[in-house]
């Protein structure tokens, strides 16, 4: 008996339910970490790209993707790592940006390819004010910088345009 092979679209839908371990309000698909899903000779190949090369979440993300595939009955799969093109926050969609903001993390402002380090206007996720300042370009995880709002005085994380 041959079990029905799930379609690539179905697999994408499952992966959209896999939360990022550090920022669980968005999925690994939302963040652009999953680059491709394809069947090759009866093996499901999921291509992932690391966000930052030292991000400790990378190994956990691989494990969670593998667990999701097993949960849906796929046992022949291969999680493949691809470095290039290098991950960029430009791959984070509008819906995910709104989710980040609602969660209290200011989403990446502007296109990363323009210039990751150029000063940008970052809106406070709490009060919406654009009167904010950077405390440090490094934050609680490699992908975030530390900011504070000079209107409501809230310190907050900013997801760097990278």
């Amino acid at each position: 008996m041959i079990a029905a092979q799930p379609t690539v679209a179905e697999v994408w839908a499952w992966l959209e339910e896999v939360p990022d371990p550090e920022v669980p309000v968005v999925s690994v698909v939302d963040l652009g970490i999953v680059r491709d899903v394809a069947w090759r000779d009866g093996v499901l190949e999921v291509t992932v790209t690391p966000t930052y090369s030292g991000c400790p979440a990378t190994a956990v993300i691989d494990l969670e993707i593998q667990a999701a595939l097993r949960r849906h009955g796929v046992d022949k799969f291969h999680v493949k790592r691809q470095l290039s093109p290098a991950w960029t926050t430009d791959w984070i969609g509008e819906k995910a940006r709104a989710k980040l903001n609602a969660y209290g993390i200011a989403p990446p402002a502007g296109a990363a390819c323009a210039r990751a380090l150029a000063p940008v206007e970052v809106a406070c996720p709490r009060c919406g004010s654009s009167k904010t300042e950077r405390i440090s370009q490094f934050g609680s995880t490699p992908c975030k910088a530390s900011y504070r709002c000079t209107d409501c005085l809230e310190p907050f994380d900013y997801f760097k345009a990278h």
Partner: protein
Amino acid sequence: MDGDALFQFLLRLGDNNLILGHRVSEWCGHAPVLEEDIAMANVALDLIGQTQLWLALAAEVEGKGRDADKLAYLRDAGDFHNVLLVERPNGDFGHTLMRQFLYDAWHLPALNALQTSSDSRIGEIAEKAAKEVAYHLERSTDMVVRLGDGTEESHRRMQAALDDLWPYSGEAFIADAVDEAAAAAGVAPLPETLKPAWDEHVAATLAEATLDKPEQDFMHKGGKRGVHSEHLGYILAEMQFLQRAYPGARW
């Protein structure tokens, strides 16, 4: 390019990051303010992450069944190929940042040049790493200016750090047979071609920081071919202890 020369070349890239990453991680929990502690840990994490990529590729090129972990934990000092600068002790906070600055000012242009390497595997790692190292250079440049042009005490410490580290700042630009082979194969640019950009950035930053660029031309070398200062042995003793005492330990 000869496989052994390529292996040596990749070990240099990996070992520079591994040893500096380890040095910077010594600050974890000790930096003067919380934001700087987090910044140090982030920089160390980036460097170690990039090390995994470089050493994994080195192991693949070597083709003897070793992996990044084996190369990091089971080689002795004579088989490490990092420049001497990165194994210098941390000293005070300013000293650590000066070392970081001198390294970052080489690291970013080096990675930018490697993105067009004739070896696409090297180009891909360089593309990834360059995005991260851009933050490192911005931060270390900013801190050198702030501390150099800061209080009398911070200025004194930064000038002392610069004078102490300067003779270690040139090794990365001195070519040897491995560098020449890499350049001939289009794998990497000749090291000295990166020097003008480094000179320019360093001179501009030191001027803004009101620090005097040392006149000294003498440069220590040896690390690239495995001849190290005594400091490397102490780093390895700490870093490799677990795998040496309990071979193959996993958790």
